């Protein structure tokens, strides 16, 4: 049983031009990973080197070094090429990791409270409330 690629395998939107570039990858769970793209395939599976996970809360961000990542393509939302000039212009300030994690947790909790209120209101109007975890991006 041999599996061969079909004649339509030649993708023209190859990520070949993005290889060895510093990219921001946004994942379906809402994470933003910044790293150097080393390889990819037709499913948009990616290998990122020197990856940092950047958490944004308000206009602050915090970085967590993560090393080498192999990302399964189905989890990828988008890849962005980082423009070093635009990066400096941004009004974002870096804060230590502990701070940003605390801020992130508070933001999550506030969101959960809001969602709870929302689903309660919907429930009262007769809508079905599903507690399934949607994509967080």
């Amino acid at each position, binding site marked *: *049983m*041999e*599996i*061969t*690629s*079909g*004649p*339509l*395998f030649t*993708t*023209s*939107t*190859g*990520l070949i031009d*993005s290889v060895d570039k510093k990219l*921001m990858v*946004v994942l*379906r769970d809402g994470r*933003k990973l910044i790293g150097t793209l080393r390889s990819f395939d*037709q499913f*948009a599976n990616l290998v990122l080197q020197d990856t940092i996970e*950047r958490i*944004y809360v308000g*206009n602050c*961000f915090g970085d967590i070094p993560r090393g080498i990542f192999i990302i399964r*393509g*189905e989890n*990828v*939302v*988008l*890849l*962005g*090429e*980082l*423009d*070093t000039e*635009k*990066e400096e*212009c*941004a009004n*974002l300030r870096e804060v230590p990791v502990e701070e940003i994690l605390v801020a992130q947790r508070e933001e999550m909790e506030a969101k959960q409270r809001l969602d709870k209120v929302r689903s309660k209101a919907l429930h009262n109007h007769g809508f079905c409330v599903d507690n399934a975890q949607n*994509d967080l*991006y």
Partner: protein
Amino acid sequence: MLFYSFFKTLVNEQVTVELKNDLVITGTLKSVDQFLNIKLDDIQVIDEDRYPHMISVKNCFIRGSVVRYVQLPQQAVDTALLQDAARREAAQPSSAQQANVRVK
């Protein structure tokens, strides 16, 4: 294959892509592939304050599976031609849906 060919005719046009997470991005369509993955250049994010991580991004690759809409300029689309092609495609989907995996 129909929409892949259709998007190929729209390369270099200004399009607006709306993702399933409500993120809306405008940019120049640079390339498209069989999965309808999209590459946009010189992007502008609508409501960019909500998406600080996109501030320093100028070009992006969007996975086809996360796209909800692609908004196109009216004049770039020959609607009659597209309708015709779609009708033909619906009539005989022979060339469509060739799998990427062929088991020998």
